[in-house]
């Protein structure tokens, strides 16, 4: 019996299968999108908090891993990687998640100035509001032309990173440009 782990590195999805060996290791089966399979024995040992080493074909790898929800931060062989653990039952439509970053808070902080108000017609790249954190200001800029339909916060409010700050109804003409 083996355990299956799915990861997404932002470009593609990987499946890693680990099977316990009767003696002293794991068999690992890895499969990429082209269905190439590989089975190798690997042994591993914990070194400390988030730190362990594993031996693969006589090469010893020391690595550190930290997690934050689904995210996995991995330090291995002089480089850092960020991948996401995904549920195997999850549909393959994960790419559909629209990047709403442009209307979301760019960083955790405080809204120091609302430049637009509900009902305003904004152009693409127009300044919408100013968020301040650690005494640095950052502007939220309109990603397209449209009308401001809702603003979820007021001046002085504290906001988390990546939360939607306002809604803009995209005007039809903006598609052309």
């Amino acid at each position, binding site marked *: 019996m083996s355990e299956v782990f799915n990861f997404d590195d932002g470009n593609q999805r990987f499946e890693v299968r*680990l099977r316990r060996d009767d003696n002293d290791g794991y068999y690992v089966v890895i499969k990429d999108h082209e269905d190439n399979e590989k089975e190798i024995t690997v042994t591993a040992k914990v070194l*400390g908090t988030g730190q362990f080493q594993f031996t693969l074909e006589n090469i010893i790898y020391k690595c550190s891993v930290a997690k934050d929800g689904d995210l996995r*931060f991995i330090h291995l062989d002089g480089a850092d990687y960020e991948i996401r653990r995904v549920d195997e039952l999850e549909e393959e439509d994960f790419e559909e998640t629209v990047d709403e970053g442009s209307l979301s808070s760019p960083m955790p902080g405080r809204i120091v100035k609302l430049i637009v108000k509900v009902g305003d017609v904004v152009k693409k790249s127009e300044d919408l509001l100013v968020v*301040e954190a650690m005494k640095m200001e950052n502007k939220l800029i309109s990603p397209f032309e449209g009308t401001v339909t809702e603003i979820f916060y007021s001046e002085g409010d504290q906001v988390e990173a990546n939360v939607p700050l306002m809604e803009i109804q995209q005007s039809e003409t903006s598609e052309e440009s």
Partner: protein
Amino acid sequence: MFNRILIANRGEIASRIIACAQEMGIETVAIYSEVDEESVHVHAADFSYPLGNPVPAESYLNMDKIIKIALESKSEAIHPGYGFLSENAVFARKVQEAGLIWIGPSPKAIHAVGDKIQAKKSMKAASIPVIPGYHGGSTNKKFLKQKAREIGYPVLIKATAGGGGRGMRIVNSEHEFTAAYESARREAKNAFGNGDVFLEKYFTHIRHIEFQILGDHFGNIVHLNERECSIQRRHQKIIEETPSTALDEDLRKKMGDVAIAAARAVNYTNAGSVEFVLDEKDNSFYFLEINARLQVEHAITEAVTGIDLVRWQLKIAAGQELQLKQEEIVSRGHSFEFRIYAENPEKQFLPSSGKIRTVQVPVGVNIRNDLGISTTGGEISTFYDPMIAKLIVHAETREDAIQKMTWALRNYAALGIPTNITFLREVLTHPDFLSGNTHTDFVTEHYHKWKNGKKETPFQVLLAAALFEVMEPFMGSNSNGETLTILDGIDPHSPWQKIGTWGRESLDVLTDRVSDTLGKGKAVIKKIIPVKSDNIKSSFIRDLDPHSPWKKIGPWEHDKKSSRKF
């Protein structure tokens, strides 16, 4: 010398000062806000006092509260570190009026250099070259716009009370002026409580060079050579080195002499830095400002000169005479500092916050780690500067130092939130960096819209991620600082063997449990030994992570009285 001092700061610089004071036999008092209760400086100090509310104005900027604690704790002096109240003349004076010693330049000197307009006037009067600009004191928008036109664009709007790039805006053309002016004033008002601004000619492709100075109360002033701080983002330094590749002995002597003259012009004492911009085209240089404090990047000067700047700060403040003679101060080799920040280089270096769960720092000859968090991790809060740590290396030549830094950064792990480490590794490979061709536009020019070059994820990384999932329960992953190590056999000297529920038998049971959840067959990992023996039992149980698989396992159960069956 003092018996006890208070350090009015936090994180790495507070730890740095605490260590130095302790070396000298001085007791140390730390202060901490609510979110810093577990911070490195609190653990390093001999005594610690709470400040409460983490908002800077209520904590590390709260002058009266800090002075009250200093008196209450019977501290004799206050070291302000950098940032916060370090360049606040009002605070320095209040400290002195309370009968305490201020470890830093006199309030008068701080005031003289802190008002940037006044400082430039003093420098001009001492025949020191200053950058063309308008320092007249008017904040009238129309008038300043007119002055900007006279100076010629690009122009820099800077906060009179500013520093660290805050309240600073580059204006490339007249139509950008109004927006930049308002934004700079607002930011300055927020950061420094003073929205006054002035104008300066903005140079591109210049170098930012500063000279470290030390002055005592007997009229002795020396400089400890330069630091090149050209590589910046958001007008804040991220990489510093000494010596600068742009200076030869002649220029170094010339600028060093001017630095001392500048310090003399304001009767400067204690440690400080005289900042210049250097235009390589004709080796002309202009006075920028004096930083009336210990700099973040002081460690590279310590590396090449072998002089402990904090130690001298304490000695000078205690009234000792400077024993260093200018001709005896020699720099040897080359040193770099790379600042590790919690920030996202892919998103204009915006600060990130959250929990750093795993920290691994490189250890080796001439590698120095000044850490703002513990090696078991820590929280980067939004209240304070997002710098995680400083990495400083020293070697005989610049090339050697680059090699050392490359190795050190490859072996650096601070995981859990976005950091600039990958970005710093990349800067180390840039041909212009390697050849020493650095200037203040280096980052914007070479790394505009930088993206982490996502190569194909190596197989080993995916394997590591999968192994982590099965091994996580053995790694103290409840993130409370406990470390659990799994070895092939139980350490015969371990006290844990003797303890009932943690004993050998139950561990075997436990391992079988884990194996069952993972599938048939024996686990590679057979035994568990908690390596941190103090307090682990209680804290581990108390702070059990609700998502931890350990909850399901018998003898580790939170409520020992429960008679749950497995």
